[in-house]
């Protein structure tokens, strides 16, 4: 599997791979977009942090409320003004909101984790 697969997700502007700590390992950015490797690096850190927080909240919520169905998490998305970052595991894809297919993005990321 490569980042090329993620770049095929509808509306993809960038695809990236990051370490467990959130450092950018590899990336592809579609020409003409306003994204930079520096933005992707911080975005990856943000996503790692929020995935960890979401795991904490999901686990706590399930324990506290008895409502199952959250864990294990299948991913996280940050929805910005023009684009959304969708991540899971150590991979992420940035999709333009007007073309975004969140389910397709999560499904593509699940292939990487499998």
């Amino acid at each position: 599997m490569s980042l090329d697969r993620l770049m095929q997700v509808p509306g993809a502007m960038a695809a990236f791979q990051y370490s467990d700590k959130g450092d950018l390992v590899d990336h592809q950015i579609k020409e003409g977009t306003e994204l930079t490797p520096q933005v992707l690096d911080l975005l990856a850190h943000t996503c790692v942090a929020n995935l960890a927080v979401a795991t904490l909240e999901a686990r706590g919520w399930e324990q506290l409320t008895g409502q199952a169905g959250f864990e294990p998490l299948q991913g996280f998305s940050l929805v910005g003004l023009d684009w959304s970052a969708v991540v899971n595991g150590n991979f992420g894809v940035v999709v333009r909101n007007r073309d975004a297919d969140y389910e397709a993005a999560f499904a593509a990321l699940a292939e990487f984790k499998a």
Partner: protein
Amino acid sequence: MRIISQLMQIPGVIAAGEYAYRGDRYAYEGNISSEHARMASILCRANTLSMNMQTELFSSFAPEDCGCKPLQGWIVRGRDISVCVVGNIFCFCQNTPGLLNDVMTIMRAKVGDIEENPLVYMYAKIGGDVHEKLY
């Protein structure tokens, strides 16, 4: 119709609510208790404010506007349930095929960036008689 009620019309939506950015006020409909809705409101507000700050930080690394701020919302995709937040609205929904995209389209149309009729937008994206399904 209020967006919360509108979201609750969609098959597979478990609960939807609205929280205040300041204070503890919240409103909700759905299959969770009032106490759990209160917790969800606090959780969603805290996450949204935190992510808003984060987007401000990483957008400063772009030469110009990188297109991410202001933050519209976020999604946590669980095994069977997803949590979607746009603005000050939250929605718990099942991971039924197609549902996440429908919910996000409605939420972005009501409190986000979609300016045209959301149904026209959805027809264009997924096709089919979504009006019957949603309303």
